[in-house]
């Protein structure tokens, strides 16, 4: 055995310490805290699983779970498809490709809070410029975030505007790492563009796609700012996501145990879905 077996651990230590303090410790604290309640004077009281049983007996919680799952079932594939589309568009070294790459990345540089404020103003039903444009064009004004039917869809579009460029970067790196001679061989064999994409690009993009899908799922389950800033979970619960419910429980309803129980449930859901996604994207036996 190498006498300096500890060297890799020494290099990893700062990152591991950071990970332990800023990631694992809060998870453990949240999981343990979800078994406690707080008295009015701030003292902790052990409640066992009561926070969970109360949540499971609450129809509004199940409605929030349902909204969160629907939101994620739509937004995650949608964002990955958009990111993949953008990556394919800017993959080829055409004349203005750098400008396009930069412009797709620009939303990433705007904070999520600012993004929310900008889109809240843009899509305001009464004063917003988007409806001003629609009225000017002779089209009916829309209620966007103020309509129970449009709010979730609008939230998905805004989150995708913000996120697609970011995920595009990872997929673009994946695309650029595919050896060009594979495409040349396929072209010589007479493969069409679609066949090259379906039989070559997609199988070779399994790993980047799996990473993007799992990371994107986690990010979207934790989406909070636009709901907090724009919709407050409404109208009529249309955008009531679990993260916002956890926030409300802690800071509006002063029920920290309930909030930590919701946070722990979110973590469990993300883990379960990530496992399923990774299995789906696992390379086939014998492939690279």
């Amino acid at each position, binding site marked *: 055995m190498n006498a300096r077996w500890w060297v890799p651990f020494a290099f990893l230590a700062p990152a591991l310490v950071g990970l332990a303090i800023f990631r694992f410790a809060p998870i453990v604290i949240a999981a343990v805290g979800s078994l406690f309640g707080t008295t*009015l*004077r701030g003292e902790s009281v052990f409640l066992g699983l009561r926070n969970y049983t109360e949540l499971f007996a609450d129809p509004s919680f199940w409605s929030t779970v349902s909204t969160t799952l629907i939101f994620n079932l739509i937004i995650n594939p949608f964002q990955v498809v958009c990111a993949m589309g953008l990556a394919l568009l800017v993959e080829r070294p055409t004349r203005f490709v750098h400008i396009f790459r930069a412009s797709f990345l620009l939303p990433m540089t705007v904070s999520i809070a600012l993004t929310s404020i900008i889109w809240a103003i843009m899509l305001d039903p009464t*004063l917003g410029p988007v409806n001003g444009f629609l*009225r000017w064009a002779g089209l009916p004004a829309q*209620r966007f975030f*103020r309509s129970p039917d449009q709010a979730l869809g609008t939230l998905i579009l805004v989150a995708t505007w913000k996120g697609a460029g970011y995920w595009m970067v990872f997929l673009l790196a994946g695309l650029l790492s595919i050896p060009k001679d594979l495409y040349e061989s396929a072209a010589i064999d007479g493969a069409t563009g679609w066949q090259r994409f379906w039989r070559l690009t997609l199988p070779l993009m399994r790993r980047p796609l799996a990473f993007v899908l799992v990371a994107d799922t986690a990010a979207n389950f934790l989406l909070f700012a636009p709901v907090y800033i724009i919709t407050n979970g409404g*109208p009529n619960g249309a955008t009531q996501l679990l993260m916002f419910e956890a926030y409300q429980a802690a800071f*509006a309803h*002063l029920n920290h145990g309930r909030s930590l129980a919701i946070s722990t449930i979110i973590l469990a859901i993300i883990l379960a879905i990530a496992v399923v996604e990774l299995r789906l994207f696992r390379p086939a036996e014998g492939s690279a």
Partner: protein
Amino acid sequence: MNDLARRRLLQGGLAAGALAAVRPSALAQQTTTLKVVWMGWPDNQVLPLMAEFEKRNPTIKLSVERMPFSQLFQALEVRLNARSGDPDIFIVDSPLTASYAARGHLMELDSLIDNNRFSAGGLAAARFNGKLYSAPFGSSMQVLYYNKAMFKAAGIEPPAPEPAKRWTWEQVVEAGRKLAKPAENIWGFTFEQQERPYQLLPLGQSLGGKALSDDGLKATGFIDGPAFVEAFTFMQKMYTEWKISPPGQFDPALTPELFGSGKCAMLLGGTFVYDTLKSKFPNLDFGVAPHPYFAKGKPVTPTGAWHFGVNPRSTQKAATAQFVRDMLSDDMNVTWFKLRPYVPTVKAVWQREAALFNTDLWRIAQSELDSTALPRPATPGFREYEDILRVTLRDLQAGGNVAQALTGAAQKMDRELAKYK
């Protein structure tokens, strides 16, 4: 110079030297800094007040942190739940007094406040379990602002300023339908605070509804009762059926802009909006009238506003006591009223500034305070109650079954209020 004189000179020099050496640190000890969390009102409405306090109390410095309304309460929750001495002083929305006091976030102030100097309403909103926990620093009253030019153009006789001739809600809607042109983004009427229970509870109360049980711990059977269902259905129709009100304008800073810019003909807003309208829209010709009521009900108006409180964990006891005493003095309250005209809770302000109150606006406000003002429900769970109702009222604008929404809200409220039993 003889020995005695030399010795005295030496002693004097040593004493002076010692004094010089000690003085800076002694002075530093005398100066106290209070951390103050305040509402995010504009610079010109806050800084002069704080500067005047520092001028009157040179040994107390104020480190003032102003927070926007939409984040103030959440930020205070985080800070107060840390249960440290930070902040020393914080602004208190008057109906939250019981909530903070029940959780040990407010110091009793009975020994610092002379009850005789304050209006009964102001003191009532500052009490919890019979003791004073917050310092009444202003109350509020809502009046109906109307745009004279828009009324004239539509050929509508505007509402009179006399409370005896106040409009009914039915009259507001009738006029609003003649004034509103939703397709052109012109509206007939808007509440200043479209989602806030403060402004909307009087609708149901006007129809005889009671917003919460007497012990402040039960909402079912109260906020979802027939009076509130009828009142909030009426409110909902303003957005969905009659289309006289602009939906989704939940920022209370925007609705006065709509009114001031001539896009809305009537605004039910606070007395403090008056000066904002005068300064931001100098050419706007507007009048004021009393708060409307339902024809089959009785006039009810909202009241209560901003108090401030002392963190019981603050280590600066003397300085916080001085802050309470001085900020509640007659002089400081006159200054505060001139900076931001909330309804004064210090009686002397009404007498000292009698000339300022000789207007329709203040005559209406005084009359309402005497006869129609009703504070928000007293409950230690007001924070939860208000948040749940606020979201429900916001949702109702978008349509949906009012009775079902209120029943759901009442159940949530009961769930959260249970912890105070």
